[in-house]
């Protein structure tokens, strides 16, 4: 056995399998017809409104999928949200501008957009020019996007993905142009700026849930239920284990100590 398996990461395997089991449970439950009721995520609902407003004003919608490459999980999540935003702009017939700073993201974004525009029966409205490549450089990209925002005056800016120092450059330019801004990111050190400069922000995990929330696909919603199950289990584990550790320390019973050690070994990173 140990010749083939990495004995050190057994607990990681158990944890990942348990997480997958919880997620699959949620998905199966949803497929069987138990659609979970999902709490309102204000930022997500604001997106649809913002697209509507842009259409009325006849001004474009700007979408930025973060500034990291496709090897960042947030970029992958953002492309999922882009799919839903693309459906909205296609349905409303509203202009969409999507500058990218990585050509892998550019390729993937074009695929996503073409699918969305086709899915709502507007393949004619799709053009590869919606998504453009600017520069791989963080600030070169920000300089150009700020230029685009101050000239094209989009009515809505969606900044969704992994952002770094450029977040405030983009968000301030959008605020000065009077756009409704919805940001979403799991990069926690940029969140205060996005919170300051944008109207709505999807914080951390909300950003990952947004795709499922927007799509209304039962499978995706089901995975939200699975996610909640995992988080509840974490909360219970946190409190339970901390008490266990303290009790074991205070009472010094051998069996309790070895039980505690076992639990901690399961949680060892």
């Amino acid at each position, binding site marked *: 056995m140990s010749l083939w398996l990495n004995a050190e990461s057994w607990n990681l395997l158990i944890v990942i399998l348990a997480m997958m089991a919880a997620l699959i449970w949620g998905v199966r439950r949803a497929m069987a017809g138990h659609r979970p009721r999902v709490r309102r995520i204000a930022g997500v609902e604001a997106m649809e409104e913002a697209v509507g407003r842009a259409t009325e004003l006849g001004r474009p919608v700007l979408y930025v999928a973060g500034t*990291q490459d496709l090897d960042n999980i947030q970029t992958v999540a953002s492309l999922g949200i882009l799919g839903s935003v693309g459906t909205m702009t296609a349905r409303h017939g509203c202009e969409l501008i999507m500058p990218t700073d990585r050509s892998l993201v550019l390729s993937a974004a074009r695929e996503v957009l073409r699918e969305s525009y086709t899915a709502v029966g507007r393949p004619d409205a799709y053009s590869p020019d919606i998504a453009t490549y600017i520069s791989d450089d963080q600030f070169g990209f920000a300089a150009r996007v700020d230029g685009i925002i101050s000239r094209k005056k989009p009515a809505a800016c969606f900044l969704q993905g992994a952002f*770094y*120092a450029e977040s405030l450059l983009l968000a301030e330019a*959008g605020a000065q142009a009077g*756009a*409704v801004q919805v940001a979403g990111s799991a990069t926690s050190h940029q969140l205060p700026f996005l919170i300051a400069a944008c*109207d709505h922000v999807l914080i951390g995990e909300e950003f990952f849930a947004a795709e499922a929330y927007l799509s209304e696909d039962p499978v995706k919603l089901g995975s939200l239920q699975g996610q909640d199950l995992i988080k509840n289990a974490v909360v219970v584990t946190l409190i339970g284990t901390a008490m266990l550790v303290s009790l074991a320390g205070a009472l010094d019973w051998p069996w309790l100590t070895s039980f505690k050690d076992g639990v901690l070994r399961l949680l060892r990173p």
Partner: protein
Amino acid sequence: MTTPKIQPDFLIRLGNLDRRWLYLLLLVSLSLTLLYSPLFPDTPSAFTRPIFQRIEELSPGQSILVSLDYSPASAPEIEPMAFAVTRHLLVRGIRPVYVTLWPEGNNMLQEIRSQVIEVDFPALEEGRDWAALGFKSGGPLLINALRQDLSAMYTGDLRGVPLDSLTALGGAKKLADFPLIIAFSGGTPGLKEWILYGGDPTGTPVAGGCTGIGTPEFLAYFPVQLMGLLGGLKGASEYESALAARYPQRDFPRRAGRRMGPQTVAHVIVLLFLVLGNLSYLRRRSTTSGPSTPASGGTR
């Protein structure tokens, strides 16, 4: 409240102040402080001290991996700490092996070579006392490759000298062979990737320096996954002061320490803006009827 009639108008007018006046105020006061550049005394904090102590404990001749993951944009914050730590390593006879996840990192390495090693340690020899492996792309995936085998990504150092001939490596073949990884990180990929992909899977201690903005987030990894952290210019200034206290005879430059003056002025200005902006906001809210809550993007 018995404020004079002019007061509310003034406060409200203050709220509508063109942002360009704020820019100007900041610009002028920073420039003035810079012209005087006073040196602020500093002492190492609980996050800085472990790194200093750990380097003091290493024995001369050991090799450690130093990653320079920053660019000219973040260099003002990161470079002073990279310089200070490099001086500390070299003064103790420890051999730094430089890599970088950022293409601009090679240029940053050049700065260390010309401003630190050639100036303060002219007797040291590249390849023997320190090594420069330089940039490879791939970010986290590069770290992953190094974890298995340095030679998977690096055939030699930046000059083309093969790895086997670099005595500065001290025979290290993979990440776990280094007693310490120090990552100076201006963003992503950087310190976080070194913790996740380098330190955690191999158990090698990781220390690091990051920009001011990264500090609060990295503290969540401290002290288990991250043994010490230099946070922004303040961290660099603290390290410089620790180095000056331990090796007073070397009299190394105090670049970060000199920049703390303008820092303090800027902090005070931003605090002032926070207070004034909110006073004006509260004043306006109390004069208009009902709780008006303008969206943050709505006020200019």
